[in-house]
């Protein structure tokens, strides 16, 4: 099957475009080292990510990966190492969107920064890895994509090399990242040992065949799966590998925090969704290892969202609050995997994916606002943000939108996704009453999250400023990115139909 007679591998175009952009950026930097032509560099990165987005959307609309008569069907590349289906395209879109926002915002954030070209190419390179991860269908490609994402991210977090916070954040991110990738690889090796294959569908086939050898290695397989969960937990900033998140997000340059907490998390989740639904069919796996792996995700989900929200509620530093809230949101999305044991689990997963898309806008926007505040140099704590709305009503209005949307308050799209997550969870709970616990945790945590999100809105809009400020600058790039994110956060509400369809089809692509 081909799109407009293109070869199969062109289905990976969204990722390939990003890779090409990264190389072009390197070339630009090679031709003129230490260039500070921000327009050229940022423009290239933005153009690359936007064309990646456009191609991904085009593919989705054209029906690449969708099954059906007029569509092109799921595209296997390199003997099933990659697979381009609705799930892959959906997440490619999320990643491209976040990358575009972040690169636009970086235009101003990186003013007077030394490593312009490096910065952009690393961002785009990491985005390439994430995009690849969305399409990876084998533990080999998954691991490569994972590292392609992680390695530039480590460098990006520490890119402010004279800033102690940034370096410390980079170190911690790196150390935990290295540890978790070691654990992930070991998990991969154990799964390979038990099944003799690294390709997800083949692993599933072996497990379902109930081969004698596999059955004997149930313990190894179980341990391997547990370790894979560990690796995924790192990427998604979930318990138990969440320690890095607050530090890394706080220390990193704000656009990078936005990038990591939105795109990187989405990439981690696509990994989780694909690996666990494709490679470890629930019944067969449960039969072999004796434990239902959704249970692990249910526990992780509850612990993650509770811990994230409670920790966020106690923060004084805005960026750190957002970091913990991002952990909390990881917990919400994990529900998508936890509910797979029940009928209707695919819908819950679809809702979780919708949440990731919406989250891509609102969370990116929120971190970019912090970036704007850093640009203004107003300080980091809630008090420092007091009364900013008087000077910058539009940015603060956008921030209020992000906050309420993150809290899941209507009429913003964050409500949509949480609403669907909740309703579908209740629906699935009719089949498996244990899921009610998850639903309860979701509601309680959402209610709690409202406290700290509204606290920031209160600081921005209601509190009196601690000191008189001069007029605040209005950097074009940051403003454009923030306003765009805010508009999308609102517009997604009425336009949720197509998004929901895409997400549900994406979920249906991996959940039979």
């Amino acid at each position, binding site marked *: 099957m081909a799109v407009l007679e293109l070869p199969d591998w062109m289905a990976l175009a969204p990722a390939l475009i990003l890779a090409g952009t990264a*190389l072009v950026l*390197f*070339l630009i*930097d*090679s*031709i003129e*080292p*230490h260039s500070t032509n921000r327009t050229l560099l940022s423009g290239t990165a933005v153009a690359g990510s936007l064309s990646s987005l456009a191609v991904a959307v085009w593919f989705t609309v054209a029906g690449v990966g969708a099954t059906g008569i007029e569509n092109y069907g799921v595209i296997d590349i390199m003997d099933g190492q990659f697979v381009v289906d609705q799930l892959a395209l959906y997440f490619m879109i999320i990643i491209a969107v976040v990358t575009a926002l972040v690169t636009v915002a970086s235009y101003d954030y990186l003013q007077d920064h030394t490593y312009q070209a490096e910065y952009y190419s690393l961002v785009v390179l990491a985005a390439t890895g994430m995009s690849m991860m969305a399409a990876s269908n084998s533990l080999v490609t998954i691991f490569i994509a994972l590292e392609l994402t992680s390695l530039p991210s480590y460098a990006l977090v520490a890119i402010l090399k004279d800033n102690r916070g940034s370096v410390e954040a980079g170190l911690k991110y790196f150390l935990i990242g290295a540890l978790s990738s070691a654990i992930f690889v070991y998990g991969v090796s154990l799964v390979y040992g038990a099944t003799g294959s690294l390709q997800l569908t083949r692993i599933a086939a072996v497990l379902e065949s109930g081969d004698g050898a596999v059955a004997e290695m149930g313990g190894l397989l179980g341990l391997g799966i547990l370790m894979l969960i560990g690796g995924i937990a790192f990427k998604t900033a979930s318990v138990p590998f969440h320690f890095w998140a607050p530090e890394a997000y706080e220390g990193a340059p704000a656009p990078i925090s936005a990038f990591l907490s939105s795109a990187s998390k989405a990439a981690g989740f696509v990994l989780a969704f694909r690996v666990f639904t494709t490679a470890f069919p629930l019944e067969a796996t449960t039969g072999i290892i004796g434990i239902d792996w959704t249970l692990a995700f249910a526990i992780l989900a509850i612990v993650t969202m509770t811990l994230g929200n409670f920790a966020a509620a106690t923060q004084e530093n805005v960026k750190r609050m957002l970091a913990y809230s991002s952990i909390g949101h990881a917990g919400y999305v994990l529900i998508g995997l936890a509910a797979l044991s029940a009928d209707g689990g695919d819908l819950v997963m679809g809702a979780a994916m919708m949440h990731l898309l919406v989250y891509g806008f609102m969370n990116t926007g929120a971190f970019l606002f912090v970036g704007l505040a850093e640009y203004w140099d107003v300080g980091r704590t809630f008090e420092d943000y007091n009364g900013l709305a008087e000077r910058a009503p539009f940015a603060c209005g956008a921030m209020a939108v992000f906050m309420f949307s993150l809290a899941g308050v209507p009429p913003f799209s964050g409500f949509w996704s949480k609403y669907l997550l909740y309703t579908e969870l209740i629906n699935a709970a009719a089949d498996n009453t244990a899921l009610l616990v998850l639903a309860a945790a979701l509601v309680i945590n959402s209610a709690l999250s409202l406290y700290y999100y509204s606290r920031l809105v209160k600081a921005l809009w209601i509190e009196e400023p601690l000191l008189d400020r001069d007029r605040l600058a209005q950097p074009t790039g940051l403003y454009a990115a923030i306003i765009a994110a805010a508009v999308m956060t609102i517009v997604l509400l009425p336009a949720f139909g197509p998004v929901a369809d895409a997400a549900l089809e994406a979920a249906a692509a991996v959940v039979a």
Partner: protein
Amino acid sequence: MNDWIAIGALALVGVLIPFGMMAVSYLLRPTVPETSKRATYESGEIPTGGTRIRFNIQYYMVALLFVVFDIETVLLFPWAVAYQDALAADIPLVRALGPMLLFVAILLVGLAWAWRTGAVQWARTPRQLETDRP
């Protein structure tokens, strides 16, 4: 007999010979302790400072560069071995050679970047110093 056992045997020999020489030397050599004899050699001068000196940052740069390039060469070996077979099996040249060219091209972009940003340049020319000065 397995190749690797033979190599292991040679490794044993390779370690035993130096140890044998050390043993012989231990029996032969005199020991005349004397403090000043053990002083660090600095061409006859009295040693100053420690050895934890700061040296050129370029050593790190090339080391990091090496780590990346060296491992990439390892990835090329399987290709090199299979190349003739692939050609013999009538696999089109684009598929047999293309990926490797792409791979090398990416490596070369990296090299070009390192080159241009001065990662492999040991010392700066006066002209560069001039332009770098703000």
